[in-house]
């Protein structure tokens, strides 16, 4: 492995992220998001219904933003020497099993995000900062279930 920079202090990263979110609020009146971009694309290939309608009507903001996230993540990883092909997994999990878990877990998050109309970025983070009841309910439910099921998923991670 080549030398790679160590990770940033989480409080410094959190402060930077908070200021970025604030800038987005001030300039655009809206926060960050991630799952919305997936819904935006899905809405363009699925037959429309009340769920997809709002994403069909939405502008390209979400997709432009998530394209930026991919570019920014690539840029940071490249500058820090962390650009590496591979599959990251727990010590006892094979590559195939890990990819299956990643896809399955991703699908569950997709279902959850569709029901909740948002994910960790748009609903929990951005809505949490604006004290939305739904955002805090989502956040508490997600972390509670994550912690409650963690012992059952130990084989995958520890």
């Amino acid at each position, binding site marked *: 492995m080549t030398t790679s920079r160590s990770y940033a202090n989480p409080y410094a990263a959190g402060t930077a992220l908070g200021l970025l979110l604030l800038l987005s609020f001030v300039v655009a009146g809206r926060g960050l998001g991630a799952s919305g971009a997936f819904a935006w694309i899905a809405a363009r290939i699925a037959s429309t219904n009340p769920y997809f309608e709002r994403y069909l009507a939405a502008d390209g903001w979400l997709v432009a933003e998530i394209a930026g996230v991919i570019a920014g993540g690539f840029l940071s990883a490249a500058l820090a020497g962390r650009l590496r092909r591979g599959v990251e997994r727990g010590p006892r999990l094979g590559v195939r099993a890990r990819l299956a878990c*990643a896809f399955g877990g991703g699908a*569950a998050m997709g279902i959850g995000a569709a029901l909740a109309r948002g994910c960790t*970025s748009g609903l929990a983070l951005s809505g949490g900062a604006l004290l939305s009841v739904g955002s805090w309910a989502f956040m*508490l439910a997600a972390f509670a279930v994550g912690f409650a099921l963690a012992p059952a998923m130990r084989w995958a991670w520890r």
Partner: protein
Amino acid sequence: MALMFALAVGIAFGFILERAGLGTAPKLAGQFYLADFTVMKVMFTAIVVAMTGAFWLARLGVIDLEGLAVPETFLLPQLAGGAIFGAGFLIAGLCPGTSCVAAASGRGDGLAVMAGMFAGILGAGLAFSPFFTTTAFGAWTVPQLLHVPYAAVAGAIVLAFAVAVRKPILIAVALVTALGGSPYRMHTVEPRELAAWIVEKKPGLQIVDARTAAEFALVRIPRSENRPGDGAITVRAAGHDYVLRGGIEAWTNEVVKTQHPTPTTIYFAPLRRHGC
């Protein structure tokens, strides 16, 4: 132009997530085994910074808090969705935003999470049922839920953060914020609208008349209380503050003396007879 800004915000977002190490699944999953609290540290710090910043910018009149997009609350779908999401987060080890960062830095598992996310959203979207829209509360905030001032909730969250990270200086920020007053701009309410609120007994309706006691004794709005001060008539309803447009004159002209019988004026007709 807006899309360029969205792209720039996204680049910074992705950059920060990667810098913090949030593009690597075992690190994220570590939170559920109490081994790595990076996710919570980053997230809670960001929420506190953005929340406090938005509060003070609104309080100082730089931004209009009501102009910001507060995610709508659909309580049951969001609790259920949160639970399913939490299970998925544990299994995948990445969340939607961080999976994009993982994929961008070359991780195949990040790409698999993105593919799963897309399949899940597409499937759930196609399976749309009325449950998705149950328990809809609109843009509902925690201060409205608890019936306490916005500043108090913001201050309490900063205080919890100060205790969690053991930073005494932040206790001062929490206190100043808690006593910071309302971040909402004063909105005006039309006399007729206020009359309708009085008739329908709008929840939490409070009318404060800051004219002199003598003026108040002469003409008064039903259910209002007199607190002599700057002469304005302010209304508090459903957690928002309003100023009665045109004051008592507009009220007298548009509600009490109006010649057009409406449900409102019919209701207030007996008051007119008593010289109010």
